């Protein structure tokens, strides 16, 4: 099956690059440890910030990795060559989504597990849901990365999309200023940015022992955003180029 062998190919590429694997697995854990010491003596603030960051790291990392990986496919000519073979666009898009989604699951599980057991982060709803939302956020990063790579001709441009796509979501997701305290139009912008929903979902998990309706709705919004991004990504991916 073409999708499966594409996933295997992408993971094999990753396997040949141990440094990238190490960065994927270790960096979020290191940063969360850094926060642990920053918020020394304020365990409640640490809980809130760490939970939010567990959703944001996989998003940023996977967005960057995906847009660069896809750009390399274009620049190396492998994308053009693949389009002369029976590969479907969806094989490629889902191949990247599932392969990097798997990598993100490992990343999120390690970071969340470390924060929970070693740093004493508390999440009332349990680690499983934290990881689930983090992975959904990572796949959102993959989907947006695939989409943005269509608009970047060079690595320089691709890297510039990171602040453009990530920074507004990071600033408006409720981490720095609670969303309900933003001026009306900013709240409106925040309402259409998918990361606002994943951060809200993580906050729900942090404060409720059982999954809440709001959490499921937020997770649904994130999944919807993934599907829209992949669909638009498939539409911008052209078998024929000038």
């Amino acid at each position, binding site marked *: 099956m*073409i999708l499966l062998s594409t996933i295997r190919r992408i993971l094999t590429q990753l396997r040949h690059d141990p440094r990238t694997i190490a960065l994927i697995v270790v960096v979020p854990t290191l940063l969360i440890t850094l926060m642990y010491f920053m918020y020394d003596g304020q365990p409640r603030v640490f809980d809130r910030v760490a939970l939010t960051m567990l959703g944001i790291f996989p998003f940023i990392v996977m967005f960057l990795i995906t847009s660069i990986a896809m750009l390399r496919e274009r620049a*190396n000519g492998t994308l*053009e*060559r693949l*389009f002369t*073979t029976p590969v479907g666009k969806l094989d490629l898009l889902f191949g990247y989504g599932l392969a990097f989604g798997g990598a993100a699951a490992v990343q999120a599980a390690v970071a969340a597990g470390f924060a929970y057991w070693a740093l004493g982060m508390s999440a009332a709803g349990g680690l499983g849901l934290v990881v689930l939302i983090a992975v959904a956020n990572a796949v959102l990063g993959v989907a947006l990365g695939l989409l943005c790579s269509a608009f970047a001709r060079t690595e320089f441009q691709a890297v510039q999309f990171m602040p453009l796509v990530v920074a507004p979501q990071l600033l408006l997701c409720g981490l720095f200023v609670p969303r309900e305290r933003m001026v009306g139009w900013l709240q409106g912008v925040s309402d259409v940015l998918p990361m606002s929903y994943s951060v809200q979902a993580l906050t729900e998990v942090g404060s409720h022992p059982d999954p809440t309706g709001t959490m499921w709705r937020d997770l649904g919004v994130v999944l919807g955003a993934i599907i829209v991004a992949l669909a638009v990504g498939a539409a911008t991916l052209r078998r*024929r*180029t000038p």
Partner: protein
Amino acid sequence: MDTAIEVTGLVVRRGKRAVLDGFTCAVPRGSVTGLLGPSGSGKTTLMRTVVGVQVVTSGTVTVLGSPAGSPALRSKIGYLTQAPSIYADLTVRENARYFASLYRLGASAADEAIETVGLTRAAHQLVADLSGGQRSRASLACAIVSRPEILVLDEPTVGQDPLLRDELWAHFRRMAADGATVLVSSHVMDEANRCDRLLLIREGVLIADDTPAAVKKAAGSDDLDQAFLNLIRAHEKVPA
């Protein structure tokens, strides 16, 4: 004569420039057809059109009876791009196996293709660690792995040593003898002599379409290099 690739009135514009300008040619099935011309003459664009990844302004390109780029053709075409287009962070075997899997073929097809291009001993090496010539052979292995009916090769022998070039050409001839249609671009004239037919292209226009012997006869020279120079000069004197 059975035609595998038929190009009629093909126009491809890039910006304001016409890369191919009313190009018409036919490639017979089961032949090795050489595509020759200076760099920038439109060879790669013509090949991209045949494999169905080029945006076409006007004209028709028919491959095995279907419009170029049809989904049904994708399992019948092998395409070698000029720059090696394989994954540098995979081994030769991993690359070949991935491309084999796209045609629902297994590891044995991949290993066979690797052997054909003489890379069996380097099969476990990462492509990034190979020499330039080895890389383009690894890329060739991925193009022939499906034993395609139509094989489109953009400068397949650049950077290869003479012995290997000879072997590769013998292989192309064998594939054609088995019924495949091989369209190969080159700028090495002794290779042109090994083709069944030659297409000479200059500035997007076809200026010769014949057997090597007939091309030489028409140009009044036994040397293909000289023959092409003569043809180009003759073409420039007669305004199209």
